[in-house]
């Protein structure tokens, strides 16, 4: 490496990295990702939003950026060396965006080494908070990005197809996590493969029980996985208390069958202000900071312990959050072309 070539930054494990998934299209996943990123930026954090919906990227459009200088395609094809080079400025001063590439088919089917390289590069981005918007489908790429992030959000709606979609994604991610953690243990790997090969015709509970009974080491590792695999569930477009009841049902079902705790962190109500903001390519927390949806978003920040500024000050009231959003909205109006 010559002296003019910058050294790649080291990964900072203290960073907040969030992966946003859904398992089904149309849940509002990308809208959630944008508003999470903008809300964190409004608190003063340095935020990078990564459009990792490989093949279906649209965050740049939703943020009103029609002609980005670079996209992920340029990085994955080696046109630029470091991922940080393709960070785009957005109307929000604290928020930068990595645009997805949709103009070539190969971007949605990256090679194995490209996936590894991209996951590493995302974790090394120079930002305190990184929000990664994944594709809606259940691919190994999406599952691996989801499991690689310290915090995973699943966005769903209280509808049969969307609940099934989120459940499929969650189960696939969990099984893949088990396989990653037990990869050196052929006996456990055979147990997991056997459940898969038989199409899960036996009780899911038997999988956890069988692993637990295999050995003391396996039991300890399993308990560690179950203690750390805690995806956060968000219900979007909520109309009444039925979503809360479904959330309780899903919590019980997953705890009974897989032994981990699914944390439902919020219910974003169906809101005309959100629909209007979406139509104008604006984050609803900025264009409608007093809306019920913005209020629900603040509750999500509290549930995730994210209602803090960089100096550690905790925002305890919605009014304080609104004041931050209004200040951020001012920047947005000022800079939007």
């Amino acid at each position, binding site marked *: 490496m010559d002296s003019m070539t910058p050294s790649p930054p080291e990964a900072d494990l203290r960073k907040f990295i969030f992966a946003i998934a859904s398992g089904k299209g149309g849940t509002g996943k990308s809208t959630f990702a944008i508003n999470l990123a903008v809300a964190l930026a409004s608190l003063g954090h340095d935020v990078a939003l990564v459009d990792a919906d490989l093949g279906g990227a649209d965050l740049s459009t939703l943020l009103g950026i029609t002609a980005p200088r670079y996209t992920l395609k340029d990085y994955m094809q*080696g046109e630029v*060396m470091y991922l940080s080079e393709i960070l785009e400025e957005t109307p929000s001063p604290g928020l930068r965006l990595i645009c997805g590439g949709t103009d070539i088919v190969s971007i949605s089917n990256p090679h*194995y*080494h490209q996936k*590894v*390289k991209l*996951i*590493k*590069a995302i974790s090394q981005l120079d930002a305190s908070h990184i929000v990664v918007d994944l594709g809606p489908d*259940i691919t*190994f790429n999406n*599952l*691996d990005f989801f*499991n*690689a992030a310290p915090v995973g959000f699943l966005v769903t709606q*209280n*509808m*049969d197809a969307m*609940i*099934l979609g989120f*459940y*499929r994604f969650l*189960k*696939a991610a969990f*099984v*893949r996590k088990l*396989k*990653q953690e037990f*990869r050196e243990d052929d006996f456990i790997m055979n147990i997991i493969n056997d459940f*898969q*090969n038989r*199409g*899960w*015709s036996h009780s*899911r509970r038997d999988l956890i029980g069988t692993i637990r009974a295999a050995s003391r080491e396996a039991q300890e590792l399993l308990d560690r996985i179950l203690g750390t695999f805690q995806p956060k569930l968000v219900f979007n477009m909520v*109309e*009444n208390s*039925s*979503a809360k*009841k*479904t959330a309780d*049902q*899903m919590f019980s*079902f997953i705890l009974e069958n897989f032994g981990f705790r699914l944390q439902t962190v919020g219910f974003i109500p169906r809101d005309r202000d959100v629909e209007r903001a979406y139509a104008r390519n604006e984050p609803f927390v900025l264009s409608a900071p007093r809306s019920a949806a913005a209020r629900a978003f603040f509750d999500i920040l509290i549930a995730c312990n994210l209602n803090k500024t960089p100096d550690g000050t905790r925002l305890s009231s919605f009014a304080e959050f609104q004041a931050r959003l209004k200040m951020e909205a001012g920047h947005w109006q000022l800079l939007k072309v």
Partner: protein
Amino acid sequence: MDNHPLKAASEGRGSDRRRREDRRKTYTDPKDLPFPDRRKGDRRQMDRRIVSDEEKTEILSRVVPPDGTAPKKPSENAG
């Protein structure tokens, strides 16, 4: 020798070399991967079901519909 065609060809490969070098530098030990390093196994897993029919029925029986009606009984979801 400065104009030797082999040297020119060698210089011409400079950008490709840098790309290959970069790829080598980002090599990750499989033990450090955040996912299973069994690419051939992945291929086989693609043919495996994620959710069984019984499981699907059980999940749907737990969804509380927004219209306030009772969740569907498992038999209503069959087929």
